[in-house]
């Protein structure tokens, strides 16, 4: 009996201690609740959207404060210099209103009425909603102002005449916010909004005409990126970067992580992933994947058979020898790759697509996949331009394009030589 009373007392005492612990004065909840007001939420959202739009890529000069401009953008018409978009009153956009900012995003017209060159992707940004534009504006107003005069563009005549942009706009610019397709899912519409709007994917993934315009009928059909000498593959061809037959997970990984079971990104796309897409939420990455997967493929005919038998046997032999010595340890004897560390080459659309530019550049210059939040320690490929001559590079690239049932076409030493001359000096 005494024992039971003692146990009851101990239990009660413990209970009291626990209660006192939880009721102790000044006790804070375990998770400090985020104390955000509307402004903070708007600025946070603006920062997220500014990253989705990759503003920093053009509006920041390496090593300089963010958004202070002055980074050169070489174009076939001369150099453009992105302006200072920090909120400095004299040299930046400190005196712009949210209305001014929306007009610029939506119509491509600056505060002072000047027509913007379409290097600013307003033909895409016009799809951004007013609420999102206001959030980006609020974010830009919140970053440290930097006093730095804009550097004048260095465009050749007649491209230095902004009046000519009236003609360009009549031909190529369709103003208007994104209109959701009620026949599609909410996820699809979110993906379409990001891809067509802030993501401005069509700037590179649609071939550019002589006036630097992308055309709507040819949207996402791929093209050479002017002045960068990389090929931006078509997003609508399953022979290029079309992802119609990819799993959603792989598409989302490719754009958000930078690597996937189907391939990895390098060059200009690595920059986009590094600066922009790695910061997407999983939901937004997946939404973009849903939309990209749904893009209608342009060609209906099946893939051609491998041309391996049509290639000069001595080229194949030389290609195989180089492959076995230099490449197989990472990419595998059968081109099967090693998970997401070293991409597969067999059945890899970036290897087999009609333009051989990217595989040649990879062999010449090597490359690292971008370091991202989900893949902070990427693997890389070394350059070979100092070890292999044009014929050897052509042989090994030909080999990986036609071996293992790959459906690519052979490349010539001349194609290698052309790219060798274009890529940055050694």
């Amino acid at each position, binding site marked *: 009996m005494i024992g039971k009373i003692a146990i009851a007392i101990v239990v009660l005492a413990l209970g009291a201690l626990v209660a006192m612990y939880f009721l102790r004065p000044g006790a804070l909840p375990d998770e400090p609740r985020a104390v955000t007001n509307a402004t903070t939420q708007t600025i946070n959202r603006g920062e997220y959207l500014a990253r989705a739009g990759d503003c920093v890529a053009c509006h920041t000069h390496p090593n300089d404060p963010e958004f202070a401009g002055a980074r050169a953008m070489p174009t076939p018409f001369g150099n453009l210099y992105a302006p200072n978009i920090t909120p400095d009153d004299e040299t930046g956009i400190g005196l712009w209103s949210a209305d001014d900012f929306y007009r610029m995003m939506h119509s491509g017209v600056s505060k002072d009425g000047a027509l913007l060159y379409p290097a600013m992707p307003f033909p895409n940004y016009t799809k951004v909603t007013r609420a999102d534009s206001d959030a980006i504006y609020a974010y830009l107003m919140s970053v440290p102002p930097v006093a730095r005069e804009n550097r004048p563009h260095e465009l050749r005549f007649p491209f230095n005449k902004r009046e000519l942009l009236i003609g360009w706009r009549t031909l190529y610019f369709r103003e208007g916010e994104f209109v959701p397709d009620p026949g599609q899912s909410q996820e699809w519409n979110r993906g379409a909004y990001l891809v067509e709007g802030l993501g401005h994917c069509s700037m590179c993934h649609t071939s550019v005409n002589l006036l630097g315009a992308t055309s709507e009928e040819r949207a996402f059909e791929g093209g050479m990126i002017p002045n960068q000498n990389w090929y931006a593959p078509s997003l609508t061809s399953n022979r290029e970067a079309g992802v119609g037959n990819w799993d959603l997970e792989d598409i989302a990984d490719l754009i958000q992580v930078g690597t996937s079971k189907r391939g990895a990104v390098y060059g200009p796309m*690595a*920059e986009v992933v590094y600066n922009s897409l790695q910061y997407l939420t999983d939901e937004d990455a997946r939404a973009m994947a849903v939309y990209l997967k749904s893009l209608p493929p342009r060609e209906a005919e099946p893939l051609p058979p491998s041309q391996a038998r049509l290639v000069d046997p001595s080229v194949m032999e030389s290609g195989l020898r180089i492959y076995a010595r230099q490449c197989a340890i990472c990419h595998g004897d059968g081109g099967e790759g090693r998970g997401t*560390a070293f991409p597969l080459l067999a059945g890899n659309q970036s290897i087999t697509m009609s333009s051989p530019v990217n595989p040649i550049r990879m062999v010449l210059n090597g490359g*690292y996949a971008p*370091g991202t939040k989900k893949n902070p320690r*990427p693997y890389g490929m070394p350059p070979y331009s100092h*070890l292999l001559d044009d014929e050897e590079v052509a042989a090994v690239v030909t080999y990986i394009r036609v071996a293992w049932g790959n459906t690519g076409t052979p490349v010539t030493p001349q194609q290698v030589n052309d790219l060798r001359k274009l890529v940055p000096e050694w």
Partner: protein
Amino acid sequence: MWSTSIPGLEAKLVEVRDESRPSCRGRCRSSSRHIHLRPNSRGGALLAIALFLGLLSARAQDEAVPAFDTVDSMEARVQGCVTCHGQRGQGTQNGYFPRIAGKPAGYLYNQMVAFKNGTRKYAPMNYLLAYLPESYLREMAGHYANLQPPFAPRDTTPVDDAVLSRGEMLVRSGDPGKGVPACVACHGQRLTGMEPGIPGLVGLGATYIIGQLTRWQVGDRHSAEPDCMKRIASRMSNDDISAVAAWLARQARPRNLSPESPNQLRMPFACGSQPRM
């Protein structure tokens, strides 16, 4: 292309050719493409020489071929470096690509960040590092700082004695008349560098040393301000630079290869990359 069909020889001749063009940089085409091996009276001797060279260079060349044990390792992750810097950071036969193994981690990290940001200009490195996070570059720097692979053979090409003695004097004592301090004053008595920011000079090829000093002279390479190497290189003549490079490339490797501890000595010039004592 090759007028021989001796099995196994062809690949090795390709490597002989690679070695024979240290600074081709892709523009020149194979210089020894005209090597022909024909079975004739001198065939045996020629073959022996070719095989010997082939074996030598095959060994050297293997050091620049990708290789690793396990995928989830730093060794596998730095395969992007091996065709120029060698499998273990020892440098490659091409004298331009420097040994990076064993240099202080702080120095290697500073260089990689400078390549990433474009403040140190060398297009192939700028491209490779552009989209790698700094935390990862620090890890790579630590990886190479901890390696100490064997050195490449010393440079033995003949050089005038006067050049070598001028080089030795500059390295050991500097040239007070020109205001050039001795290399050893900062790079250490053993020339193995100083933690955390000053690189070792042992094991570097003359081409690389000349290239770097010249780049500093013309303002193409910078260090953190105050840029001590800019002050030094701009006081040196081209002959001084060649002499220093020739002497350094010919030195025996010290037994103790570790960089010196920081700030045992006061440095003659302030350097932004080295914290002051």
